[in-house]
């Protein structure tokens, strides 16, 4: 804590020192305004309420798209814990990937399509939009931890979704900002889009008390378990058809003995694995005070749970706001939020081995028997797996209203720290125990200053200027130690010598310890100026220019100047003033260029030297002969000079209007999003020694349409029906590759200019060769078709020889399918009958495909079991009916062409889905006779909600949402549970 305070003070001092000049100079500049940083109001309209002392809430809204804002009132009826869950499917153009139902695990959001290809998990971090909480850009995790990881399934540390810290009951509105000019005002932070969350605000008046609570349960999913007999029968045809005598001799041990009850007995593991769990939440909000000084307090406690593997998330959150107006021209506003997240994680073996980087012998997998699984769980009781994330964020804001000039200064801070303590006893780790401790934090300080000036010339013309400047300081840091093979299972911590006088002071006693530290420090300095001109109520035009300097860019190209323009034209007022059925009709156009930031500091340095002692499977060898090594970054990739900032050019053209006395609202936006000059870690000739080089010049275009229609279809006194339909159609295209290349192969992906970047690169499977004679013969050489030189035989797949050269190799792979959906959206309905309300939400995503790795591994059992690597791990949940056996041909699993290789369209499946996500029925008690006379109660709303009730899909895996970022279905995502809650909301 001392460190936090110290660094806060130093940051303040630093910025003040740096600012003193700024302010002095700013006095002579054209006064502009920062405070109209775009703020879009929720449909739950608070803008009609009296404006109060709060600074942040007086940003006026200008909602453009109908589907750009989340209805917070309806969302609060769901037990969602993360921002991603709240927004999933609800906003046209925002695609949420919830790849696991494990509560509090990391989730991804993509606004308007992928702007860069995703090869590994850390690529997805770079594509995330910025989330603003009352104007604070919330700092997220940095992908740098993957540098020391062998496997990227989970990041080290608690790996908790930092956006699951905000309680929906404290949220007034969530806007997804997609307008290019609005994003330009937010700057490089918002280059991937922005999500603007506004909490409920402090306001004056007699004290307001609101209490919300719900209680409910997640339902265990119905698992069709199997035992070894099923596996035995599954393998039988392969052995009958292809096995040699020695293959029979090598038949896996755990399937050999059919009298072994562990494997061949009843498979009741699911009783312990999949369970119903309780979830609950209670919160309290208190608002009150005078016009001169008012406050808001909010506190909540929430428990969320998954339905598998005893996963759980506990959250405690508190928020406090104070606004003061000591003089009529000065307003002071402040907020402090604190939250704590405790997470019970899954107990997958894979995730455990990946964390420990140690794979024991996997010859005998975990058995499907309940007793065997129970004894494993008993060992887990001796383990420690604590994951705690603590967060504090807040702001202090000053506003001076010196009409017609306003000056606003804001200090934001955001700090979060994650702690993970792990101990696995010897019984879980093949006779070897394991301890790891992680402490990492991310902190951001930011100072914004802005002035604005409004000038009316006459009734028709108005000009508004603003200028602003901000400094942002980001620090990511962690310390991590893992330790193996301690003396016994009673000492669960890494003990070090505590005697200062001894030579071995602080040297570990007992365990074999490895330690890692890393730190990334970035700063961003921005200035901008903008002007807006409006003519009557017909036309507005605004322009902005900004200059951003980032410490993570190379010194020569540190500053990036970018303009933005937008225009809005009221067609209604221009042409249709007399028209009765058009209430509003606007046309907007907006264009901006925004520089993008590097999250890694390596690019600023240019050619560099790094520690590089290990290799892919052993990334963390400390040195050679005990001496640190520093070399060119051969394995991570060459970084040269002339790396310029990537940027994004975005164009929007949209119409929105409302018709028939506002009973029908519609908005349509066409966009082009060009992400240019991006870096790609691309191949370089191996003779340089480098595995790859970072070259600039990757460009990706996303085009699409966001559409929203909302209609009040029935508006009777007793019965009403409102329906909203939103969707986004998006298409991405690779526009260029570095060095003018036309195509590039990176790992098992191929990028081709003109094609989409999320395509799978796979062989086309056309069946099976039943006999050697069926394999085609090359008339030129009289040799049979080969797979990369190995002659195909009976039992091998009939892969399509695209180029007809009688050799199947990567030249015969084709780009097929997309991992991202083409169409996403939702259909929401609200029915009202008397005091009852019924909400029904359906979300859908169409056009995406997935490679079923789970099935590929099941069929490739020969290679999988022999490899004894991370893919060989067999989890307890693999003892269930998985793949559709009839779908796949019976190939020779011993064949050296690896017939069940993943990269073929045999495993490519359509992962489109539609889900009945929410059904909620509520009853407004306050309107009943019971409460009618009790004026103290303003509102009392009782409701029941069911979530994730129904999925319509043709996907063969358990759930088409549980697909990894790269389009692979691994079977590892925990099921997204059906939940049922009963809740009440009371406002006093």
């Amino acid at each position: 804590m001392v460190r936090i305070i110290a660094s806060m003070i130093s940051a303040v001092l630093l910025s003040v020192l740096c600012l003193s000049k700024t302010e002095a100079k700013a006095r002579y500049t054209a006064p502009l305004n920062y405070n109209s940083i775009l703020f879009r109001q929720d449909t739950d309209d608070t803008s009609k309420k009296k404006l109060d002392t709060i600074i942040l809430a007086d940003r006026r809204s200008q909602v453009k798209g109908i589907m750009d804002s989340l209805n917070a009132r309806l969302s609060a009826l769901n037990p969602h814990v993360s921002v991603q869950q709240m927004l999933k499917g609800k906003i046209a153009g925002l695609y949420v990937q919830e790849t696991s139902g494990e509560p509090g695990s990391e989730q991804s959001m993509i606004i308007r399509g992928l702007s860069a290809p995703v090869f590994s998990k850390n690529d997805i971090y770079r594509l995330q939009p910025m989330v603003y909480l009352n104007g604070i850009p919330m700092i997220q995790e940095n992908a740098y931890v993957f540098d020391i990881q062998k496997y990227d399934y989970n990041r080290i540390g608690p790996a908790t979704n930092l956006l699951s810290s905000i309680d929906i009951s404290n949220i007034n509105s969530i806007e997804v900002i997609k307008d290019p000019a609005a994003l330009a005002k937010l700057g490089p932070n918002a280059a991937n889009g922005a999500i603007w969350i506004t909490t409920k605000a402090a306001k004056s008046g007699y004290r307001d008390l609101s209490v919300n609570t719900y209680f409910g349960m997640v339902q265990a999913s119905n698992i069709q378990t199997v035992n070894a007999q099923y596996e035995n029968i599954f393998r039988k045809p392969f052995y009958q058809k292809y096995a040699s005598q020695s293959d029979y001799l090598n038949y896996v041990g755990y399937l050999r003995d059919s009298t072994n009850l562990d494997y061949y007995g009843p498979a009741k593991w699911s009783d312990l694995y999949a369970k119903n769990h309780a979830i609950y939440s209670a919160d309290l909000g208190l608002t009150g005070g005078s016009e001169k000084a008012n406050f808001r307090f909010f506190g909540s406690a929430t428990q969320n749970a998954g339905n598998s593997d005893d996963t759980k998330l506990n959250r405690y959150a508190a928020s406090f706001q104070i606004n003061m107006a000591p003089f009529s021209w000065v307003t002071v506003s402040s907020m402090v939020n604190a939250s704590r997240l405790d997470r019970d994680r899954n107990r997958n073996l894979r995730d455990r081995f990946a964390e420990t980087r140690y794979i024991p012998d996997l010859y005998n997998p975990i058995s499907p028997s309940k007793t065997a699984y129970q004894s494993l769980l008993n060992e887990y009781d001796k383990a420690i797996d604590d994951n705690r994330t603590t967060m504090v964020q807040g702001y202090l804001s000053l506003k001076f209203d010196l009409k017609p000039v306003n000056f606003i200064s804001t200090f934001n801070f955001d700090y979060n720290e994650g702690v993970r303590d792990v101990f696995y006893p010897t019984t879980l780790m093949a006779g070897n125990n394991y301890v790891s401790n992680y402490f990492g934090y991310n902190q951001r300080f930011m100072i914004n200053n802005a002035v604005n000036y409004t000038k009316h010339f006459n009734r028709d013309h108005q000009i508004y200027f603003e200028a602003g400047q901000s400094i942002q300081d980001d620090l990511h840091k962690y310390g991590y130690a893992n330790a193996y093979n301690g003396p016994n299972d009673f000492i669960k911590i890494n003990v070090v010598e505590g005697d200062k006088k001894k030579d071995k002071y602080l040297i570990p006693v007992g365990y074999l310890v490895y330690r890692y530290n890393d730190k990334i420090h970035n700063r961003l300095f921005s200035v901008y100026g903008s002007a807006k001109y409006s003519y009557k109520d017909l036309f507005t035009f605004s322009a902005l220019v900004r200059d951003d300097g980032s410490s993570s860019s190379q010194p020569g190209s540190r500053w990036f100047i970018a303009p933005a323009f937008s225009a809005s034209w009221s067609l209604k007022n221009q042409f249709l003033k007399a028209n009765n059925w058009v209430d509003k009709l606007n046309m907007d156009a907006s264009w901006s260029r925004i520089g993008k930031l590097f999250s890694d500091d390596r690019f600023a340095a240019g050619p560099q030297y790094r520690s590089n002692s290990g290799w892919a499977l052993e990334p963390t060898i400390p040195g050679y002969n005990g001496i640190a090594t520093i070399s060119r970054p051969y394995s991570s990739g060459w970084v040269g000079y002339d790396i310029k900032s990537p940027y994004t050019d975005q164009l929007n053209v949209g119409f929105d209007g409302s018709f028939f006395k506002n009973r029908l609202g519609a908005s349509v936006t066409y966009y082009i999003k060009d992400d240019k000059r991006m870096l790609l870690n691309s191949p370089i000739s191996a003779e340089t020694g480098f595995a790859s080089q970072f070259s600039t010049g990757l460009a990706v275009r996303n085009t699409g349409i966001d559409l929203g229609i909302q209609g009040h279809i029935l508006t009777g006194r007793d019965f009403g029906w409102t329906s909203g339909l939103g969707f986004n159609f998006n298409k991405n295209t690779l526009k260029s590759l570095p060095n003018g290349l036309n195509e590039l192969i990176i790992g098992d992906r191929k990028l081709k200019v003109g094609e989409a970047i999320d395509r799978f690169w796979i062989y086309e499977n056309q069946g099976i060769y039943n006999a050697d004679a069926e394999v085609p013969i090359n008339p030129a050489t009289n040799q049979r078709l080969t797979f990369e030189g190995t002659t195909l035989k009976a039992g091998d797949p009939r892969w399509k020889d695209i180029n007809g050269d009688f050799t199947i190799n990567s030249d015969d792979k084709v780009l097929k399918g997309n991992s991202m959906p083409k169409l996403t959206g939702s259909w929401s309905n609200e029915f009202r009958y008397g005091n009852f309300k019924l909400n029904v939400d359906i979300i859908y995503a169409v056009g995406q495909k997935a490679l079923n790795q789970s099935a590929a591994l099941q069929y490739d059992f020969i290679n999988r079991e022999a490899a004894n690597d991370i893919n060989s791990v067999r989890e307890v949940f693999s003892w269930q009916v998985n793949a559709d056996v009839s779908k796949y041909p019976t190939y020779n699993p011993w064949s050296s062409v690896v017939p069940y290789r993943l990269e073929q369209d045999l495993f490519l499946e359509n992962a489109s889905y539609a889900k009945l996500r929410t059904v909620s029925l509520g009853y407004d008690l306050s309107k009943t006779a019971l409460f009618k006379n009790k004026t103290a109660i303003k509102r009392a709303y009782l409701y029941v909600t069911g979530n994730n009730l129904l999925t319509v899909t043709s996907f063969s895996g358990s759930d088409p949402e549980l697909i990894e970022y790269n389009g692979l279905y691994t079977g590892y995502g925990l099921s997204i549970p059906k939940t049922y809650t009963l809740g009440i909301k009371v406002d006093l």
Partner: protein
Amino acid sequence: MRSIFKINIRFNKGLLILLVAISGLHFSCKKMLDIESSRLSNEDTHWSSLQDTRSGLMASYSLMRSAMAENNAHWLWGELRNGDFTASSRSDLKVIINQNLKASFPLVQKLTSWRAFYAVINSASLFIERAAEVRATDIRYTEPNFRADLAQARALRAFAYFYMVRIWGDVPLITASHDGTFEDKPKTDQSKVLAYAETELITAAKDLPYVYGAEGDEILPGSYYGYGVDRWRGALFTKISAYAVLAHIAAWQSHYIDVSVYTDFIMTNYAKANIAYSTTSQLTASDGIFNGQSYSQVISFGFNDVYGESTANGHIEQLVLASPLISKQTPDLYVSKDSIASVFTDLNDQRFGLDTISGLPRTNYFVNFTGEIPVFSKIKVLRGGSTNGNFAIYSSNILFTRLEELVLLRAEALAVLGQRQDAITLLNTIKKNRGVKTINDGTGKDLISEIFAERRRELMGEGWRWYDLIRYHKIQNNNPAFMNLIQQKGIYWPIAKEVLNANSKLEQNNYWR
């Protein structure tokens, strides 16, 4: 309209002031954006002090270690093709043993990439080009130290080329770092590559000491980078190491006269480097020559547990150890009982034979001989030489060569050159050390076969078998199938597709096309 015009003028003034203000801000906050990264060292600061040469040189060694260790490549290249090991169930190992190297297993793809060796070459070249900068700026960087460093970098680079030639034959010869201005190069004939390596090694050998960190050493007196002799034992290239590589380069090209010259130097001078023969127990103990540091490790790349360098991957143990030594049930690779019986013919052989008193098989090289699958346990350095098999991480060094290997190489050269008696003396030295009956010369005695049979026994699991087979068949010239493989260049490995894709001037090796 007029009012708007006026405003424009005023606005322009404002804009001017704004621009001035912005440029002022840039100036005042420019420093703020200079953040020194703690994760890397950049060109401005690197190559200025002793630490930079030390860490740079060690990096070249560690890159060489990675090139050999990644995917356990040293053994997969050296031991499997046509070798003594059998794969229990892994198909990717089976195809290598059967020399079906076109097979498309990920492992085979990785083994056919030479990228890691060029990382050694690039880093050594860069060191050779830049170390002089440190010599100019840091007075602690003495001339002998500088020269010894350059010599090591040269020797490592030459060693990397030799290693690559054994695997791929012709490889592109690149002798400068081309730092940042890379261009694609075609393959160079292997004789040119080896000639270059030979010249480099001869140059390097002059400046290489016998021992690092020794007080009063002729070539490199005093501590080396602040450490004494104990720290550097077996870790770095010595003069003997350079001659060992020279001898092997000559042997690979069948220049046996050169081999005898180079090995003669080794035999005369090995004592100066404190090198000694290893006893059978030193050879096979878990804390023997494969663990930690020893002068007798003539060329060795260490994974010293003392320094936290033990790993799970990168050791032959990962492939061959199993129960009862570790908890793994079946080893990935094993030497079948039939092979063991045919290789170890002398019952008194300490490495493997039958104990004359108890009648039980000796367990130095193999344990679980009575079981279905014997476990090759010659090298079994569990974490720092312990015997705790619960935690299967290993500290064994990649021991490229040791005195016994060089003695047998010399014996081979002498035998080829017709100096049979000297060859037999050397061979018998090794045999005696292992408790095996010595041999005498006689008419019709196939001395070459005797020497290679001894190499097979002595060096089993040290990554020599495949190259020994090549030399053996070249000398004997009596196996048409193998000679055909040599002539067709099938003894080399194919080049990985990604390597070919990235450099248009390369072509796949003919045999594997």
